[in-house]
């Protein structure tokens, strides 16, 4: 049975995404699975390990340009970050300072810190953030893509917020606490985590794009992500105090503008979208056109 060439980004494994998004046959994996650096801890919990601990890292070409990449496997333990997983990501980030690629591209798909290795994961997240910011400070763009089954939550959500730019698909979700946690804390009347439409209006790709937390939104295909990443790589951003001051004003205004919002609909209405009920069924092209028309974003 032939291995299919996957077009769907959502359905693909991390390895298939690397093969489908970046230039063909250009990937040089570092610490490949043949070296068997799996988790030394999962055996205590009777859980099978994975030879790459759920993340693939290496050097690769994108549009002919040299980049470093990391791709998380969302279907292994929910993409959760453990000791080896985080160390591989820190490694590839530190490698950027040595190799000076055109960009660091991160294909995110993670629910956050791996409980079975909680402390290592938690510290690992902080180490990743620090190494990521070192790369940005050195003038190398760090671009993230989100479009898998886990999206980014917890520590992974925070890491994604530290990137220069993000591209999402409609399927993406970005947050800190997952929908079930919100429901548990606030009651099912306030938030029903089984209401998929509500969940996506709260933390899904379209909402994050409208809020300008993501720089681009694309359809769920390898090609679309590839093209978006190539474009985003070329936008030079600086990581400095002036930029953080600007970001502060944006975040302060957002919290004031939407302080009484309970739903994505409320936010989109306040922003000035007409016919907000239609937004969930819009194509991403139509949404981007509307976003441009009302003067938002890039």
């Amino acid at each position, binding site marked *: 049975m032939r291995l299919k060439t996957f077009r769907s980004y959502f359905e693909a494994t991390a390895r298939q995404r690397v093969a489908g998004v970046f230039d063909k046959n250009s990937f040089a994996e*570092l*610490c490949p699975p043949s070296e068997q*650096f799996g988790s*030394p*801890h999962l055996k205590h*919990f009777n859980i099978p390990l994975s030879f790459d601990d759920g993340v693939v*890292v290496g050097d690769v070409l994108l549009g002919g340009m040299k980049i470093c990449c990391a791709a998380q496997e969302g279907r292994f333990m929910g993409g959760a970050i453990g*000791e*080896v997983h*985080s*160390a591989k990501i*820190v*490694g590839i980030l*530190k*490698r950027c300072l*040595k190799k000076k690629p055109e960009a660091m591209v991160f294909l995110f798909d993670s629910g956050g810190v791996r*409980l*079975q*290795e*909680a*402390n*290592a*994961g*938690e*510290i*690992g*997240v*902080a*180490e990743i*953030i620090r190494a990521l910011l070192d790369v940005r*400070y050195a003038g190398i763009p760090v671009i993230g893509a989100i479009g898998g089954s886990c999206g*980014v939550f917890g520590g992974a*959500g*925070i890491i*994604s*917020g*530290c990137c220069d730019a993000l591209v999402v698909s409609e399927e993406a979700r*970005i*947050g*800190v*606490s997952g929908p079930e*946690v*919100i429901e548990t804390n606030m009651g099912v009347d*306030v938030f029903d985590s089984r209401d998929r439409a509500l969940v996506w209006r709260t*933390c899904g790709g379209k*909402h994050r794009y409208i*809020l300008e*937390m993501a720089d681009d939104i694309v359809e769920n295909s390898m090609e679309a992500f590839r093209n978006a990443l190539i474009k985003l790589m070329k936008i030079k951003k600086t*990581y*400095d*105090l002036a930029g*953080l*001051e600007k*970001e*502060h004003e944006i*975040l302060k205004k957002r*919290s004031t503008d*939407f*302080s009484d919002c*309970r739903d994505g609909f409320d936010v989109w209405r306040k922003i000035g979208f007409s016919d907000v009920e239609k937004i969930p069924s819009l194509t991403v092209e139509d949404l981007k056109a509307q976003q441009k028309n009302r003067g938002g974003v890039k």
Partner: protein
Amino acid sequence: MTVNEVLNKVFPLGSKVEIENNIVSGEGRTAAGIVQIIGTCNNTVIGVDEILALSVKFLEVMRENPGRPVLMMVDNNGQKMALNDELLGLNQYIAHLVKLQDMARRNSHKVIALVYGNSIAGGFIAFGLCAGDTYALEGSNTSVMALPAVARVTKLPLEYLEELSKTVAVFAPGVKNFYLAGGLQSVWCDDLNQCLENALKEDQCSDMRSRIGMERGGRSAAWNMTQKILDEQ
């Protein structure tokens, strides 16, 4: 100990803070000069409001007192788990706050975090683990998730996890485990002023936590893994 009780021990030469909505801000005096104090108290949860208030303090110290050391007083019950905060993009707010801590360090401020109460999960990442160096007071608590909750999620018996946590430092709550894993530079006890003086002398240029974790035996794999990837041609 309350935040003021801790500060009195850390700053025998004097300190003064204001507390508003569980946000602590002020100054402490050392022989070498003033230290900016930015923190939280009362086991508060870290949500959008807290992040904006803490962020303002970082922006102020970078603008008004370049190079002044910052002591982060850490006591939180994790990230706020509420609908509006998630809707607004809490992850981006937390990212903003950690970038401010990082930028302060790059702009020659020593950024020292001291856990004196609790420091939990997303709250610990937002305000604690992204400082230049992270410390904890003896008797304080650092944790991702309490063991009974871990038992429920992993479906393993609590007694088994309690036994396991005696030898496997990577997963169970507690300052000792975070110390062994390299997450804490050291645990403060006895002369807290001396502890601060030592912290102020630390070079915060490189993140050596995974090597420290390997040396202490808490994280045996991470440092070598990172080095291996770095060393490949």
